[in-house]
């Protein structure tokens, strides 16, 4: 598999009145052509900010990308000109956001919004663009697409709007689609439709997808590999099967343990993770999870662990004690 995207040591901070928010703290990973990578984490773990940083969509001020490289298709997106990044965005690299209502323009018809992108990026004529838009909306499962081009976003249901967003993301045949919590606002039966659609599109079109979510179940269903993020760090990375079945990081272990599962005996107490995530404003040195970790020792409070390889192929973890934990001696 050819590497499509490589992120090196990405750091993003926000300079606010209350202090410096350390939102993304040295994230590195790569995505191959045609694969689905999941990024999971809870609110404030930096999963969305890191995605916006890839596309240079961080408002500056207050935000600033402090360091890092984002190699996509032979270019470092963090150093290319503004004009070039605009060409990349929505073209070869598209993004779908969580809330379709606030990312669609309510005063313009859905058809116009997609046609606009096609004419801008692919130099199509009005007529070609309209035909292509109809085709796209049909692909994402909008019934009677041709007659819905002149409808406004509010005339679509939540699930249908998210399909419109996906159609828009797909419009210029992206090599990589970043989907930021695209199903979070939707009901489970509609979520199942969208996840199903994504699987089909990815297989048909061969694009790569970064799927950002807090829902471990969706990741298990959809992705091949997964990054687990906590407090702006990637704390565990591996194939979905390894991360869920041979979990190495105490945070991932805790997260999986705190979920009730449809396939398990109910009635047992959930093993909740005590405490709550750290304040990213005064992030202290040391492991960000130490305060909530049942295995924390002195070293965890003073030195920040970096991702290191484990005994499992292509599975990395940022924990000082992962070996002891894996062997059950911690």
């Amino acid at each position, binding site marked *: 598999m050819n590497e499509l995207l490589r992120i090196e040591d990405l750091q993003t901070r926000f300079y606010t009145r209350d202090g410096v928010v350390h939102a993304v703290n040295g994230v590195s990973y790569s995505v191959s052509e045609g694969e689905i990578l999941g990024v999971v984490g809870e609110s404030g773990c930096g999963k969305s900010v890191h995605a916006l940083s890839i596309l240079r969509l961080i408002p500056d001020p207050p935000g600033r990308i402090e360091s890092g490289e984002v190699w996509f298709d032979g270019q470092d997106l963090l150093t290319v000109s503004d004009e070039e990044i605009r060409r990349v965005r929505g073209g070869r690299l598209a993004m779908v956001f969580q809330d379709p209502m606030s990312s669609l323009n309510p005063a313009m018809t859905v058809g116009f919004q997609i046609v606009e992108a096609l004419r801008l990026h692919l130099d199509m004529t009005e007529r070609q663009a309209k035909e292509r838009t109809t085709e796209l909306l049909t692909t994402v499962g909008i019934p009677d697409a041709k007659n819905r081009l002149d409808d406004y976003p509010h005339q679509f249901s939540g699930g249908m709007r998210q399909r419109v967003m996906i159609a828009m993301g797909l419009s210029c045949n992206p090599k990589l689609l970043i989907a930021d919590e695209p199903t979070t606002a939707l009901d*489970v039966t509609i979520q199942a439709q969208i996840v199903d659609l994504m699987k089909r599109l990815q297989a048909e079109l061969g694009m790569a997808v970064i799927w950002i979510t807090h829902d*471990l179940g969706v990741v298990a*269903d959809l992705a091949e590999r997964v990054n687990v993020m906590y407090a702006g760090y990637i704390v565990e990375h591996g194939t979905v099967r390894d991360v869920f079945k041979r979990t190495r990081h105490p945070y991932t272990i805790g997260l999986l343990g705190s979920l009730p599962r449809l396939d398990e005996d109910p009635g047992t107490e*959930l093993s909740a993770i005590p405490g709550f995530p750290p304040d990213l404003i005064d992030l202290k040195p040391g492991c960000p999870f130490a305060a909530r970790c049942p295995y924390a020792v002195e070293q965890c409070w003073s030195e920040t662990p970096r991702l290191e390889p484990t005994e499992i192929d292509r599975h990395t973890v940022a924990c000082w004690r992962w070996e002891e934990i894996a062997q059950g001696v911690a």
Partner: protein
Amino acid sequence: MEDERETLVQVRGLVKHFPIMRGSIIKREVGQIRAVDGVSFDLYRGETLGLVGETGSGKTTVGRTMLRLYEATGGEVIFDGVDLMSLKGRELDRIRRRISMIFQDPLASLNPRMTIGSIVGEPLLVHKAGNKKQRRARVGQLLEQVGLNPHFVNRYPHEFSGGQQQRIGIARALALNPDLIICDEPISSLDVSIQAQIVNLLERLQNELGLTYLFIAHDLSMVRHISDRIAVMYLGKIVELADRDSIYSNPLHPYTQALMSAVPIPDPDLQDTRQRIILEGDVPSPANPPEGCNFHTRCPAVRLDHCPLAEPELRELRPGHWVACHYAEDYL
């Protein structure tokens, strides 16, 4: 034990329709949102009844109408032998002390200008329970009970995290020693690792205080974890009601089956092997629900010669297992 269960609440044929108004100066009613359209169930003392459904299914409206936060369009809610819908003034106040509510958005349900001490103590003040000193002691005790430091009484809601804010809401709900707590999506706005903390707390409190919960949620895995019995709603009606184990091991309504198969399981092996039923289309508008069985427009097992014509009744197919589908016997 089955026979000795004491019924705390009987909901019978509860209906809540919201008028759709048009016009700016002279308003006229142009239609009705049939949010709750004939819902009946019992709540046994000490149990947790999970009420699940998707957006617009009417589950929240059921909870609010039971408390008379909305006036019901029709139906009865008999709480401990008294019909709540017919009570007025002081009598209503007296019975309302025994029912409280926990809300979905903890911050929005806490007054930002009040300290958490006065928030938790307010029900005591409103219902004139005890003197000042007794009230203060009770607030301290309540905070401790939900796992908050009693020294925090003078702090404000925004100083707390989402999980802690929900604990404040729970403390307030407990203030008057209620029999029943209506939990309206109490964990949906919380992060996964915090959800488990709150669910564990709710379960502990139920054991200690013998509380009855109506637990309204859309997260089926959490509902299964916390509930003794589960009612599934679709478009203002209960389509299936049974105890937890039978509804999960043998769901009899096609909607319940689809809903359960749509829940993502955080286990890649199981994901690969399980059967998924993916429903087509969207939930119809409750302003104009389909005729006959209101699920027939999306039902994978629909029989067009019957389902769109006749409305199925909620029938008891097995002891305690109720289902509203003409062909539920097929799944027995």
